[in-house]
């Protein structure tokens, strides 16, 4: 007996088939394309601080495109102002501007990168011609703190004359956008006790760093007559004269890394060898230990348990570092002459051989990346993923034990040499 297929039966069957197909391949089905829309994207902040020269460049936030090119998200600081300094911690990046004496800060919230958030913290900034009685900012005491819980603040010490303790004040900038008109407050010196610092980024600029002082047997931040104790000094640095400069290499909830200052004479003497000793406070145990960092004038950056270092050595003869010829050698549009800037600043008295070192402060692992290029740096370490830059190219790799594996090119573009900060965000 044959079944006669009525037209309506065929129609209903077709509908059913279509429904099944839609379920499998339609909009409601989990697809790779749909996952890509909600997957975290890589954001890259490009900017070259130029405090010491009369040239200015913008700070621009980019997104890494699927074509390995930079896609502009927004300009954070315009070319006309230029950058003074960048301080990043957690979910916030503070970009101070204008370039010589900062008066305002552009804030990048990594949870909402498109949000434009600019605040004036130094409305009476010094100007030789229009405001000679105005306020300067102490470069080496700008710090991010977590004194107010989840929202990082930035502390900017101001003074009309840092030689006179009575002339100082503090601008305390909150990253909490819900505070509306109350985000810049005076004072709050005690917040230095909860300072956070990722350390120094790469690039041709000479970052100011964060300068502490010996206060008895403690490490303190001392500025404009205000002293805030940060931590007890490591045993080897106790009993040093008061106000001996101590550099705070990095500071997190888990670690505090410090080193003593080296004079030009010490660096030039050659007696420091090929590495320097730094002091590491494990905040969880409260114990200090020492660590050696390769190079005598290296720059380090903290990411979780990893201390990432751009190795550099004192360069008495001011020889050009390897890879100098591969750096951008002309000023173009809003891009600096990177080669010139290295020759004047980061590469003038520092020979940077293109060696990046990752040291795990928890388990002692060490990974060495030899790029052979002066203009290279580690941008970020998150979990077992590392991003590092060599000239105009950003690489992503996976940390596997003491090795890097699965290295791929993430971005290669003209403005990549200015990228020194990276984060993922949805």
């Amino acid at each position, binding site marked *: 007996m044959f079944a006669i297929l009525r037209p309506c039966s065929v129609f209903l069957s077709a509908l059913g088939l279509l429904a099944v197909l839609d379920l499998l391949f339609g909009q409601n089905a989990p697809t790779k394309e749909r996952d890509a829309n909600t997957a975290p994207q890589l954001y890259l902040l490009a900017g070259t601080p130029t405090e010491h020269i009369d040239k200015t460049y913008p700070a621009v936030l980019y997104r890494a495109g699927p074509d390995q090119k930079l896609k502009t998200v927004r300009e954070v600081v315009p070319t006309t102002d230029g950058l003074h300094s960048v301080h990043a911690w957690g979910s916030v990046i503070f970009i101070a501007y204008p370039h010589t004496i900062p008066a305002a800060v552009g804030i990048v919230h990594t949870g909402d990168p498109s949000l434009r958030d600019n605040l004036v913290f130094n409305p009476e900034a010094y*100007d030789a011609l229009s405001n000679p009685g105005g306020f300067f900012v102490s470069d080496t005491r700008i710090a991010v703190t977590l004194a107010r819980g989840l929202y990082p603040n930035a502390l900017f010490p101001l003074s009309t004359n840092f030689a006179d303790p009575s002339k100082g004040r503090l601008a305390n900038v909150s990253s909490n956008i819900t505070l509306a008109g109350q985000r810049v407050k005076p004072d709050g010196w005690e917040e230095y006790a909860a300072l956070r610092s990722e350390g120094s980024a790469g690039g041709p600029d000479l970052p100011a760093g964060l300068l502490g002082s010996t206060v008895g047997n403690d490490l303190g931040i001392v500025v404009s007559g205000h002293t805030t104790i940060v931590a007890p000094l490591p045993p080897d640095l106790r009993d040093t004269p008061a106000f001996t400069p101590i550099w705070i290499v990095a500071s997190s909830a888990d670690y505090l890394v410090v080193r003593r200052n080296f004079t030009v004479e010490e660096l030039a003497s050659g007696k420091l060898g090929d590495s320097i000793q730094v002091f590491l406070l494990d905040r969880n145990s409260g114990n200090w230990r020492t660590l050696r960092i390769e190079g005598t004038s290296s720059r380090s950056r903290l990411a979780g348990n990893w201390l990432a270092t751009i190795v550099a050595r004192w360069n008495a003869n001011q020889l050009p570092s390897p890879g100098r010829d591969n750096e951008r050698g002309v000023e173009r549009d809003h891009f600096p002459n990177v080669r010139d800037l290295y020759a004047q600043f980061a590469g003038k008295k520092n020979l940077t051989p293109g060696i990046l070192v990752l040291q795990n402060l928890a388990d002692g692992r060490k990974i060495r990346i030899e790029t052979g290029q002066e203009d290279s740096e580690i941008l970020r370490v998150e979990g077992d993923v590392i991003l590092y830059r060599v000239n105009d190219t950003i690489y992503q790799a996976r940390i596997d034990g003491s090795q890097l594996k699965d290295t791929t090119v993430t971005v290669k573009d003209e403005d990549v040499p200015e990228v020194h900060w990276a984060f993922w965000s949805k």
Partner: protein
Amino acid sequence: MPKIARRTCFTDYLRAVSLGACKSNRRFLAKFVVLAASVLVIPLAASAQTLVVTSSGSTVSQGATLTINTVPNMPNLVLSVNGGSSCDTVSYAVAVSYSDRAGYTTDATYVEQDEPGDQSVTVSYFGVLEGGVATVSWQFDGVNQSSTLGFFINGSNPQNSDVDAYVSSGPWFIRNLINHESGYQQFDGFGNPIWGSPDGIGLMQLEPPARASLDQDFWSWPANLADGLSWLNNTKKGPAYNSWNNELQQMQSDMAPGQRYPPNTGYSYCYFSYPQNGNDSYADGDWIHYYNGNYFIFWNHSNLSWDIDTTGYVANVCNTPAL
């Protein structure tokens, strides 16, 4: 209008001829004479005019060189046409063009339009100075003429005393700076604007965007000096003074309660110190260096020491005498 005036002149002539023929009652002959005259006269009239160019009474020949004087004024140029009449009109165009080693071109065209054909005209420059290759072209009764005249216009350098007088209100180092930049020369040995790498022009070796007067910065030495002074005073002084004072404060902040003053830095014509004590200010040192770009002195946080560009631009300027 000129064409109408021409027909009036020419038909009067033809009428006079035909009247003469009519008086002899030989109309056919009269018409032939008029026709013959029109055939003969027009070509003869077209080939009779020539361009005449003089400067201060002397004929300017092909390939000659005229000079912008030290005042500065453009060379006197008088244009006329031989064989033109009051019924004719002549238009002149003097095109001047120059390209420097960087490929930048200065140019201008001076036009004298619809002048009577029997009159000379002195070219009006309206204060715009231009040099280089000059070409005079002309129209006669609205027709472009194939003959032109080509010559050169170059510049002449002012006296050192004129330069000094012009910049007397400038900063104390201005004459040293000018001598270092150009040796007090606006023009080279060929009378062309002196050019220096990477792309500087004239006495102050102006580069864009300091060339506010554009072509005049090439051919007018006062314009070059004025724009250089403006660049120094209005664009560089403030940032330079801000920079020095900021660097001083950074030292104060890092070294407090102590101090670490910069070492004195001396040259043949400058001596910088802090405290100043009657010497030259480091702020002015930065001001000098900013004219060429970048820093003279900054406080290096990394080593808690002063970084001074002792052998760079400031040394060059401060070791060069004023003239």
